[in-house]
């Protein structure tokens, strides 16, 4: 019975999501989805959100108190403890018992959370601490876990949050466009938007929510995040709609699949409402477009001259597919996704991508302060695929990309003796066609999306025996273990060290039939030079663009050198921001919205 009713609800929500959403409609549809997201927490009895939702919906308050107090008996989870606790408290403080309020306050006195070592950790830590310090004002250091007074904590938290907003809106986010770590930023800014007492911080919180959603919207296709990513876990790299970001796509854009994950609960309870323009940017795919972004590398503490080197993103978005890339090299530790094609057809495996599976203490030492040699085993203790030669995530210093619209060239020049002396391509099992054409092209059909992959060197096909399981650790992260057997996906592996491939993507609406695609592409054969230290390729695309690419950084398009360094913070038909500007302009048809963080103001 329960299953039937849930199914009916889901169908109803999907029909709302699928319908036109403009003006008041989109807000109405949003409210419906938000209620769906929180509905299971009205009756569940585990986790902070079961208390938060009861408080917010003003029912079963004694149950909420009981749940909350029980959880606070053994605080744990560092910044992952801070945000649900302060979020739950703020939703319920006027409705909970005095005893519960006292228990919460005491927890912030006695439990010392670790601040963490990533950008998302700090966003959560300082956003939570900021709200807590504003809430409990005037307390001396002895009333706080860190020995600092309320004023000191509020000041420090505000300073860091302003610093983060400033650096994000001038040279880009460091932990950028992460399908799995997107929620941490959304939650942090939601706390500010909902609960900050300082009007400026409240406004900045709302502006950053606009900013984060705009960042996602422009590289979004029906619930999927498109392009290259700073961090992604293996389950989501195969199955894009399983990422945490997709839950936000469902809530805000009405796309993808319904999700009631806890990551999205505080957003669903929030008073923040996404501006209509972002809904259109996220969902209007009536015309293909190129969208470019500049991001930054996470803080480099060793082996680099620059603390935050630039990351250049290039994404081509169409109604049927998106293909996107980072320029290659080590831009983030462990979980980088350098390039990929994602499309609508064939859930859940809606992607094709490739990589050089690389790991080293050098890579880790760039970003982590611990001793170099034991670092790999330390990382593997929590991210077990890191040193697996069959892994499907991570960047490589020996990989570079060059993308023009829906064509990408990826080159590799791998020194002998590198930990892995092969490159891999991922081809999902549910492709309608995967043809090994005598011309040298691998020709794939995924519904109305066609993908041609021309390997520059010979390789072998290996059927995947395992793919990552869905086990989660205690903070809800995939464990990246290889337990679940899901046979049938295909790995194209090449053991040549000087290597690469050209990938062309087209859709039925772009080129017509699959047969026409295959017929045309057969005559487009890349010319490659593949010697150590001299890896290059020349290729003329199906659209007759001339691309030449010499590893690592010589890119020429139609005879002209491509200068990635001129890439703006955002540059596309919907979003525009100059590097260093602290100003993002969103446009859609007659609509315009400007986020000016220098003031701060929102101009419409």
């Amino acid at each position, binding site marked *: 019975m329960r299953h039937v009713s849930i199914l009916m609800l889901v169908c109803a929500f999907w029909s709302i999501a699928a319908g036109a959403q403009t003006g008041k409609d989109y807000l109405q549809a949003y409210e419906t989805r938000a209620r769906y997201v929180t509905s299971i927490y009205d009756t569940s009895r585990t986790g902070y959100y079961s208390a938060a939702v009861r408080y917010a919906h003003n029912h079963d308050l004694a149950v909420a108190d009981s749940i909350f107090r029980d959880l606070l008996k053994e605080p744990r989870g560092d910044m992952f403890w801070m945000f649900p606790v302060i979020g739950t408290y703020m939703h319920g403080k006027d409705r909970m018992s005095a005893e519960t309020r006292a228990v919460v306050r005491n927890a912030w006195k006695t439990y010392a959370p670790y601040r963490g*070592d990533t950008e998302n950790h700090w966003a959560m830590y300082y956003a939570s601490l900021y709200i807590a310090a504003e809430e409990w004002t005037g307390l001396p*250091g*002895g009333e706080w876990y*860190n020995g600092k*007074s309320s004023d000191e904590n509020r000041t420090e938290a505000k300073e860091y949050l302003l610093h983060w907003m400033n650096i994000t809106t001038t040279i880009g986010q460091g932990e950028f466009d992460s399908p799995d770590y997107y929620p941490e930023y959304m939650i942090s800014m939601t706390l500010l938007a909902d609960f900050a007492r300082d009007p400026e911080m409240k406004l900045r919180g709302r502006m950053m929510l606009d900013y984060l959603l705009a960042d996602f919207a422009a590289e979004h296709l029906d619930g999927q995040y498109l392009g290259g990513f700073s961090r992604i876990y293996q389950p989501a790299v195969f199955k894009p709609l399983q990422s945490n970001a997709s839950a936000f796509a469902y809530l805000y854009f009405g796309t993808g699949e319904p999700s009631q994950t806890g990551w999205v609960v505080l957003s669903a309870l929030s008073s923040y409402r996404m501006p209509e323009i972002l809904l259109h940017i996220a969902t209007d795919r009536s015309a293909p477009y190129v969208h470019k972004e500049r991001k930054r590398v996470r803080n480099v503490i060793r082996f680099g001259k620059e603390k935050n080197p630039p990351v250049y993103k290039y994404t081509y978005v169409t109604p049927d597919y998106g293909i996107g890339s980072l320029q290659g090299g080590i831009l983030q530790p462990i979980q980088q996704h350098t390039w990929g094609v994602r499309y609508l057809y064939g859930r859940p495996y809606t992607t094709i991508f490739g990589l050089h599976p690389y790991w080293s203490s050098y890579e880790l030492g760039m970003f982590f*302060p611990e001793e*170099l040699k034991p670092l790999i085993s330390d990382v593997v203790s929590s991210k077990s695929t890191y040193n697996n030669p069959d892994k499907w995530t991570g960047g490589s210093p020996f990989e570079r990309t060059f993308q023009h619209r829906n064509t990408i060239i990826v080159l590799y020049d791998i020194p002998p003796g590198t930990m892995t002396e092969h490159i891999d391509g991922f081809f999902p099992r549910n492709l309608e066609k995967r043809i090994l054409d005598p011309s040298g092209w691998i020709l794939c059909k995924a519904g109305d999306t066609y993908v041609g992959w021309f390997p520059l060197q010979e390789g072998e096909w290996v059927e995947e025996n395992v793919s990552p399981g869905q086990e989660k650790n*205690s903070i809800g992260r995939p464990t990246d273990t290889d337990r679940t057997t899901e046979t049938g996906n295909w790995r194209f592996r090449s053991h040549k060290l000087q290597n690469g491939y050209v990938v062309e993507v087209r859709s039925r609406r772009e080129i017509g039939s699959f047969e026409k695609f295959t017929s045309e592409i057969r005559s487009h054969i890349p010319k490659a030079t593949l010697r150590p230290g001299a890896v290059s390729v020349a290729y003329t695309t199906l659209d007759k663009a001339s691309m030449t690419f010499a590893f690592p950084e010589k890119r020429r398009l139609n005879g002209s050198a491509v200068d990635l360094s001129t890439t703006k913070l955002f540059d596309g038909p919907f979003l525009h921001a100059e590097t260093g500007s602290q100003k993002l302009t969103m446009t859609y048809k007659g609509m315009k919205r400007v986020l000016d963080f220098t003031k701060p103001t929102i101009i419409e």
Partner: protein
Amino acid sequence: MEQSTMKRLFSAGAVLAVTLSWTPAMTRSQESTVYGTVVATRLFIVGAANPRTGIFYQHPGDDTTWSHTGPNNIRAFSLAVHAGSNGKVQYIASGNGLHKTIDGGVTWRITTDWRVTEVLWVSPDPTDLNTVTIATAYGIYRSTDGCASWTEMNRGLATVFTPCVIVDRRNSRTLYCATEDGAYRSDDGAATWTRMGLSVGGIRVLAQHPKDPSILIAGTEDHGMYITRNGGQWWTKSESGVDHTTFYTFAFNPRNPDIIYAGGYVTGVYKSTDGGGSWKRVNNGLTCRTIHSLAVDPGDDNRVYAAGHWGGMFRSDDAGESWRNVGLGDSQVWTVTIESN
């Protein structure tokens, strides 16, 4: 600067594989106190329900029992006790910043803010209770006002990743620091730094002879160990009997400084009895071979502690000839510190 009056920051939870009880710092034995700085235990995941980490002290008379003290789960790298404070002023270098207590560990305060993170080493000025220098992943910072404020002190450093900074024993205006680019010396209280005459990079640690301050020993990543006998001008690679290349720690016998212990990546413990001229390995009973920190008990120079990477704490009572595990489970002990009471 406001000082906290809160009681010891404690929370319930399982702790390593050792027996735990809390003994107030004031009631400890008057013998030396041995501290282990545990940076992590197995399967450390930020945000997870990790076993307790941070500072542990060994119970006198029950040498396999350790108690946790101070803030928990802060990614603690090292501990220092400020000389001249009768053990009351202590510092924890950690991911959360620099923690300080002025009451022997009853209350703690984070003295740094968001600008300072990944504090790897803390060196209090032995002549001035207000002056402390820290080495971080982002360079050197110094406070001269009892940790109320901090100033970045990286002038002259080619790279800022600094895992170690030490204060000269005889002249506290002179400091030495280890960087990825090489070993540096400052003669003006860290205001400016000059690269010493050591040609290799990847310096992990520096240690100074307890009696002759012109003698320093440097451990490196991949380049072995080097000794200078003229304050850093000339360095000689110490390689007789050395089969390894990466060294994280050295400990001098305070009474006979010709005896030196060394440890590093899969090295076990090396011992020299001729001031670093030659070395031999002394690993009998040492079941963990990556040693991150060594310390000689100032009250009994035959007693040596070795902090193991994922191996817990080891102790030798015969000057390194044999070792036994004395607890802290299979944790990653970053530093062992002995406070002479």
